[in-house]
């Protein structure tokens, strides 16, 4: 792995969000590369600063600066890598220079790959929770905001209150529903 690749992965590495395989690869690189270890320490330091030192205001643009530093990290041999250099390396070995007589076989491969992709897409569309069709019920009822029934107003308020305590709750959105329903009721 190149330093450039590793540095791109450091935010996920710190959040333990990489797969075990990729985490091991990054870990192995970090064991051998002091530059990347320093980059990791710098990232950890910035996060600790934000979380613990409440009296310090980070300068504007700090976060973007950190990201730029990660992007412009140096290679292990000290040579600064350009994006083109990485691209050249990744393209090496790819059979662009394939002889023309082999193209028909390649097309067969391509056809097989397209078929497999089609089957996978069909499976995704029909079977998995990620499917865009899995959760569709367009014939849902309208969402009225003018409710005259005091019991239902209470139900909306109580339910919004209960929902606002949930994880990742959109507190501002739920508060605005409660306030809108209340205002509408008062003006009726």
């Amino acid at each position, binding site marked *: 792995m190149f330093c450039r690749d590793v540095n791109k992965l450091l*935010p996920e590495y710190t*959040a333990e969000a990489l797969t075990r395989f990729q985490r091991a690869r990054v870990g192995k690189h970090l064991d051998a590369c002091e530059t990347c270890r320093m980059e990791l320490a710098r990232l950890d330091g910035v996060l600790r600063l934000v979380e613990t030192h409440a009296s310090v205001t980070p300068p504007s643009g700090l976060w973007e600066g950190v990201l730029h530093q990660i992007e412009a990290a140096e290679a292990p041999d000290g040579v600064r890598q350009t994006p083109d250099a990485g691209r050249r390396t990744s393209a090496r070995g790819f059979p662009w220079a394939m002889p023309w007589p*082999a193209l028909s076989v390649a097309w067969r*491969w391509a056809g097989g790959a397209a078929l497999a992709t089609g089957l996978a897409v069909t499976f995704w569309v029909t079977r998995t929770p990620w499917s865009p069709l899995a959760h569709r019920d367009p014939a849902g009822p309208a969402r009225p905001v003018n409710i005259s029934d005091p019991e239902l107003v*209470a139900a*909306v308020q109580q339910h*919004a209150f209960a929902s606002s305590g949930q994880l990742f709750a959109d507190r501002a*959105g739920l508060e*605005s529903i409660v306030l809108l329903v209340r205002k509408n009721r008062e003006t009726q």
Partner: protein
Amino acid sequence: MVGRRATAIVVGIGLLAAGGYWLLRQRQVEAMPLVRSALRACTDIDHVVRQTTTVYAGSKPVRTEVEIAYRRPRFRRMVFLTPPLKGVTVLDDGERTVRLDPDSARVVVGRTAEAPERRAKRKALLERNYLARMTGEETVAGRRTYRIELRPRHPGNPWKRLWVDRVTKILLASEDYDGAGRLTRKSRVESIEFDYSEPKGSLKPSEELVKHAKPEPADENEIVPPGKISKAVGFQVLRPTYMPPGYQLEAAFVYSCQCGCRVPAARLQYGDGLNTISVLQCGHLCHHVSACGSRGLPQGQGVRVVSGENTIVVVGELTRRELEKMAKSIPGAAFVPERPMEAQAP
């Protein structure tokens, strides 16, 4: 012939090698650890955001701009900046929520909805009932974010799409979808500041303010153990025997019935880690009792049934079929779906 076959094999191996190399270079990110980090970051990092929030209530979306200040451990201040809620301020100190409305010159105080003691259980439920997947990266408020979808393992349950800051893991945008797959709410941070100069006291409601507040009955929620709720409200609280997959009973509350009588009523709260179903119940036939059925509400849907002397309203953001199934499972529930609930209101 042999030459063609050899070329095909070489091309195949080349394609596989190129594909494998491409895969190795890709970022293979597991989304659930990022979700855990985002949950932590929301409370661990002091920051101020200006965001737009859109709720799809009524005939058109209602869009408001809000400034929200977060300060550890659990202080939060929300100021609505644009009509129709301009000037409304909501303060939350982790125990009480205070709402100040300059138009009506009214201060409303209620118990805060977030319960730290239920947080660990909700996290476990979230990981059990939802699949997290990173669906891409986007720039929100000038910052790189992961776009993550939290889709339910049980189709028909509501779900969310989140945008999580790549460096700090703070939540910068979200979209809420109901069980039918319709967008119900969305919020997006327009700007963020890690501003620590805010004095701590400005995020905490003053005692003077709280003393002059007039509590609104609908905001008073007294939590009681679910086993003792019937004794607390003075009537037999009925529970549904069917629950949508993934949901569990979280807590029971006492509040004042809003039909005009103001007698104690019960609210049972069910959760699946991310969403809530509320079952509101009073021990008498309210004056709308003849109007049962289900209808859309500004948030989710409501299904009203009666059982004996009890009037019961089930509210949630699931599909109507699931909510009706849950309401019908309440022992003795009588359900008249043809009649709109407000048709016979006096």
